[in-house]
């Protein structure tokens, strides 16, 4: 990038000319550098994130075929050298008509929504407690929330198998204190799926909540108390509204991935805990029906598109405010 003599070498030239040259150079360099900085991540994301989704959309409009790859091409050379466009919407009609798929979608939304509410109920008091703890303790308490997130997700889900199964620790405990006569069916149930999702996604709820609660101006609460406002009312009218950005960010960070969750319903859920991520997996790996799997993915994207856009809006507002 370094072309031409450096300003110090052109000692003989007039200072005005020198300054002009430097201005031009820094301008073009700035532009070039800027283009280089933008181009690399931009083209990577276009190629490996956006293009793949467009390809999924394309394949969802194909038919399953005995070929490699196992679907019909969209563009085909028909007779007399005309290009024929084959668009097949049968996959979407199939999804819509089969109660299995509609049921799986509805169940995914329900499971994700209920889990989000429970994450909020458990996570809010924890985030509040951490944010109001003595400053020296905060970093330790926060580290303790983050630590499980850094250990393997798969292994944390696996831990619940040992706790929940018929001869597992929880049943053993309940039997030994005489609360139940025979083991409860805890594993492979909807209850286990809820538990697994709440457990795995709790840190995602606590961190954004903590971030908003710790930034809150505590003198507002003092002012409310001085004016005779009881603590519960001050919480509802001051703290809760001010922490709304954290509530929304945390809820979206739990809800959206939970809708498409595969590992948790597969390992902890029963045969009736059908969630859409699991359906997609089966459609792809067991039935090897790529077009239907692609259609399931596109339909799932459509369902989460609204919360996804909301998430981006919140994120954008957050960064502009920080600046």
């Amino acid at each position, binding site marked *: 990038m370094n072309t031409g003599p450096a300003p110090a070498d052109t000692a003989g030239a007039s200072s005005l000319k020198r300054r002009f040259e430097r201005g031009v150079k820094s301008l073009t360099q700035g532009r070039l550098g800027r283009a280089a900085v933008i181009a690399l991540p931009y083209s*990577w994301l276009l190629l490996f994130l956006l293009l*793949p989704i467009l390809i999924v959309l394309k394949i969802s409009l194909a038919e399953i075929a005995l070929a490699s790859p196992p679907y019909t091409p969209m563009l085909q050379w028909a007779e007399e050298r005309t290009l024929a466009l084959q668009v097949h919407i049968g996959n979407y009609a199939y999804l819509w008509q089969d109660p299995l798929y509609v049921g799986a979608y509805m169940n995914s939304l329900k499971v994700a929504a209920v889990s989000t509410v429970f994450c909020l109920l458990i996570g809010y008091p924890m985030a509040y407690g*951490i944010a109001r703890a003595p400053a020296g303790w905060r970093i330790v308490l926060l580290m303790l929330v983050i630590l*499980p997130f*850094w250990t393997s997700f798969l292994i944390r889900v696996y*831990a619940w198998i040992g706790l929940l*199964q018929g001869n597992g620790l929880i049943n053993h405990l309940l039997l030994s204190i005489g609360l139940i006569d025979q083991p409860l069916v805890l594993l492979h149930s909807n209850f286990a799926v809820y538990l697994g999702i709440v457990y795995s996604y709790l840190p995602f709820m606590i961190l954004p909540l903590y971030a908003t609660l710790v930034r809150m101006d505590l003198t507002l609460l003092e002012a409310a108390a001085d004016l005779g406002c009881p603590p519960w009312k001050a919480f509802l009218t001051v703290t809760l509204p001010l922490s709304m950005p954290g509530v929304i960010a945390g809820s979206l960070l739990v809800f959206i991935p939970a809708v*498409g969750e595969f590992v948790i319903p597969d390992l902890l859920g029963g045969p009736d805990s059908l969630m859409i991520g699991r359906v997609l*997996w089966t459609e792809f790996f067991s039935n090897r029906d790529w077009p239907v799997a692609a259609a399931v993915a596109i339909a799932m994207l459509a369902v989460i598109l609204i919360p996804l856009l909301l998430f981006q809006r919140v994120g954008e507002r957050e960064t502009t405010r920080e600046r």
Partner: protein
Amino acid sequence: MTGRRSFWLFTALAFGYAFLYLPIVTLIVYSFNDSRLVTVWGGFSTRWYAELFRNEQILSALWLSVRIAAMTATLAVILGTLAALTLVRFTHFRTRMLFAGMVAAPLVMPEVILGLSALLMFVTLEQAIGWPPGRGMTTITIAHVTFTSAFVAVIVQSRLSQLDVNLEEAAMDLGARPWKVFFVIILPIISPALIAGWLLGFTLSMDDLVIASFVSGPGATTLPMVVYSSVRLGVSPQVNALATLIVVVVATGVIIAGWLLHRQARRAGR
């Protein structure tokens, strides 16, 4: 703060941390159980660790995962930092919304969609231009870089937006070129974020089951894929031993990081 309220907050915290840690603690305890059964305590033993270290399948999968994760983390730090720079410094360019959306999307996109779309793209590309030849380590790495660089971008972005713009302007006024400003001023200041981003990218890649399962090929079995297939069959003491080792490594790392942060904060406070 009144006594009653701090009592409730303490209870909430105690309950929350118990919920977060009890499953992990039981995993660790039962990794030292001599018996194969979960509920029967057969005495203290380290036999599962010995078996784990003799398990060729797990060891080779671990080695593959480590190589993929190191490569992923390095590339993700480069891409994520550039993406964060773009988002923080260049606030006005056409299609910025599209770019910001693409950077944020992998944070919340269900893994099954990321995995399926990456696989279908690799298949299409291979058909069209013959690259990538088959699927394995390369395709897993590319797919992992795509989703982990989003996390790196978030970390670096928050660090960059705290940066004092005056420092850069001063350097520019003194004649430093943009790339020099980046390497001499910005890079040292954001280096903690880059280290955190690298570690997060490494962890996310090591941990991923879903995306790797989609884009992997014959012969490329990562550690989570081995763990998943053994866990599907039920509780396995070797997985408990593996989990314990992972927890020990991660906890050591987090404690060291916490200590460094603490020291840094104290030095800054002085």
